[in-house]
């Protein structure tokens, strides 16, 4: 399906202390790997904002790979744990939005693992080659826009940012939650938010009725209505004129 001349666009985020150094070591050891990856250096994998990742896809990246230090090795003590939560959540958002979460990959490479670095990059490039180009059609653009809204949402960012510390130290009442338990809550918040974001992404092209939104998102009308009521309460959507006895909903301020 991919044509001969197509070469995947891959963005790599590497942390300065481990994976970027591992990439340098691959260089000094002259370990050859696929040339498609374009590396951006950050100080810590925990610095990688999910917004960047979604924006990279929206700009035409076919794959994004984030490599950090192994657990316990992080130069910033816990940055890689934070990265894990963020990237995992971003993968889940992609999946919930109906996109291929395999296009986003997270792993760990130490400064001493030049060989491993090259292997992971090759494996990831191969995987993206097999998946083919992302092909940003209207449908995907809409989904990615919704994903961007979701990773930018304050509530989502709060729970994802809080996940590591809550599991480690417990909540404000000193209660410790099992990781899976808390993560289920995180996921439900993300899911709820993504639904709202998808509606907002759909409304970007103009006011629509509940039925129109529901058919575009392949959701039940009652679910869409529920979310719309929420969105109106949050002051993001407003009810406008009535079309064929059905009210039109529009993004507020647009």
């Amino acid at each position: 399906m991919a044509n001969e001349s197509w070469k995947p666009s891959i963005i790599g985020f590497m942390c300065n202390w481990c994976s970027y150094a591992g990439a340098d070591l691959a260089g000094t050891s002259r370990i050859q790997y696929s040339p498609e990856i374009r590396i951006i250096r950050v100080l810590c994998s925990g610095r990688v904002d999910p917004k960047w990742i979604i924006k990279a896809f929206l700009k035409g990246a076919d794959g994004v790979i984030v490599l950090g230090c192994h657990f316990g090795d992080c130069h910033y003590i816990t940055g890689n744990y934070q990265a894990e939560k963020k990237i995992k959540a971003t993968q889940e958002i992609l999946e919930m939005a109906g996109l291929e979460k395999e296009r986003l990959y997270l792993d760990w490479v130490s400064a001493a693992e030049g060989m491993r670095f090259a292997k992971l990059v090759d494996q990831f490039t191969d995987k993206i080659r097999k998946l083919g180009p992302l092909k940003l059609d209207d449908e995907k653009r809409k989904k990615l826009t919704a994903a961007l809204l979701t990773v930018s949402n304050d509530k989502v960012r709060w729970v994802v940012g809080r996940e590591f510390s809550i599991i480690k130290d417990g909540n404000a009442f000193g209660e410790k939650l099992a990781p899976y338990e808390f993560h289920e809550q995180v996921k439900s918040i993300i899911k709820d938010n993504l639904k709202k974001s998808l509606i907002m992404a759909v409304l970007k092209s103009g006011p629509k009725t509940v039925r129109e939104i529901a058919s575009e998102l392949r959701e039940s009308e009652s679910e869409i209505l529920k979310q719309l009521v929420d969105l109106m309460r949050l002051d993001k959507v407003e009810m406008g004129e009535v079309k064929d006895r059905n009210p039109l909903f529009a993004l507020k301020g647009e």
Partner: protein
Amino acid sequence: MGADSEEKRVGVFICHCGLNIAAVVDVKKVAEWVRKLPHVVFVRENIYTCSETGQAQIYQDIKEHKLNRVVVASCSPRMHEPTFQKVLEKAGLNPFLFEMANIREQCSWVHERDKESATLKAFDLIRASVSKVVRDEPVEKIRQEVKKEALVIGGGVAGMNAALLLANAGIKTHLVEKDPSIGGHMAMLDKTFPTLDCSICILGPKMVEVGKHPNINLITYAEVIDVEGEVGNFRVKVRKKPRYVDVDKCVACGDCAEKCPVKLPDEFNRGMTIRKAIYIQLPQAVPAAYLIEEEHCLRLKTLKKGGKEVCGLCLKACERDAINFDDKEEIIELNVGAVIIATGFEIYDPSQEPKYGYRRFPNVVTQLDFERILNADGPTKGELRRPSDNKPIKSIAFIQCVGSRNEREKGAGRYCSRVCCMITAKQAFMIKEHEPDVEVYVYYIDMRTAGKGFEEFYQRGRKEGITFLRGKPGKIEEDPETHNLILVAEDMDTGVLLENEVDMVVLATGLRPPQGLVELAQKFHLSRSEDGFLMEAHPKLRPAETPIDGVYLAGCVQFPKDIPDSVAQAGNAAANALGLLSKDYIEMTPLHPVIDLEKCIGCSLCEINCPYKAIRVVKTEKGKKAEVIEIACKGCGVCGASCPEGAIEMKYYSDKGIEAMIDALLEKKEVEV
């Protein structure tokens, strides 16, 4: 003139690196393409950009072409970023108006067989760097005054040595010890391996020196309760428990303890002797003074319950009027530039593993218990007698690796505790020295005797007739009448099942992270290794430093080690602290976050997640807002990546900078190879 309004004049220097880059990347072509990029006003190819002439060229070109941004495309920034940043500084530019494109390690060297792709990639990387550099903003240096005092936490052999080194160098040093006396575990040892020095004889003079040193402020019976601040300026709160005995008046005559009616097990002799509620921790204690233990003293207990002033026998016995029942807890506030943590270890508690019968069978003891039995000040006055009936010992068995190299038992360590093999060798040797006829068996998995003179010492023990058996007893049973112990183990060398009855068993207990280490680590934002001990900044090159500037490690708090290694690490920690404290100011360029106060809602997610306490939420006129402590920030950017409101922007690794790179890397190329 603001950074935005000024015209961006970017100079790009593309390195051939001899043939390292030029043999793969078509540098000429890349240079041509780069010339067409927006803001690029000057492009130069160099054979070696990092050479003296290459650097001088950059300097000249900055001046001549009025460059205000520089991109060097060459090797990894991990290699030469500081080199070129210095050139910029010399030329009067802020060193952060600079980017490097890594076209060697991450391009020419790894795509040697695909020159076309490598050339395109090199251009992409440079284009991304140009895109970022025009968005970079200057990062200013900040200065932090260095408070020229030090704090050492833990008064064992490591902490004492660190404190003495600092104090001798003229640094006012506070030494905080949780026990009533300094000395730590080493003071409890009888002899030290492999030289068999008397432990307290070599430690005692050091303890006295610490106690008398004019530059050391000794705070015993105390603990750190709160830490604020950062390198150069830590503010530490210490809680000093009341002793109820005036240390200056007490001459440690012991008349008080003779009269005291409350009998308690003496911790120093591992509970094998009795002490009173008014007691001295050890005969050589520093400070050499008694203290009253609040929770056990009759008078203090009754007073606490609102009762009358009862007992008071010690008060009457003390001729020097040293006893003061009105003594109060004290909170001491210290302000120091550097902190050394030397809180040591604790012994693994083998009663967690019922198969050994520790605490159930009186004649099963730990190495530390046995150390006291061997000691002339111990429960048996140094005679080899066993606890159950005080009978002389005729046979004894040691079991190695109790609580070490154990993945199954909760609370045990997977690691080797390093010292237990040699302690056993030493104790077995001491037994043979006391009573050559005693049968000594050592059940082991491996004998690990790496260290100066250690293997020789172990071999000497073998020649003395100590029996070493490879194999650990699965269980210890006690003969209820004789209190003798029966061990069954498979001798791994012969495959024979051996049953052995001995008078006494010594468990070679491993070393564990001490109680309260988790809390202490949290106070200083230190991380712990998988084993629970504190983690060093680098396992090879920075073994006494921590990821937190100005906080250093000495002794077993980092990992189990013997006395010479602890002392050596204390020296390393003290040297590092001295290096810091010798400066009046420290200068740093933290790539810290900048808070948009309009957007910040004071949710404190950044404060919770910051591993360095470098950001905190404070009350302002506009409500709760985040505040950055620039000097403490390491620039990781976790706060920026998670701020729910998007109110945090990082210096240098900024959102706009990184997003510009993403855009540049994914832009359609209008070039042809």
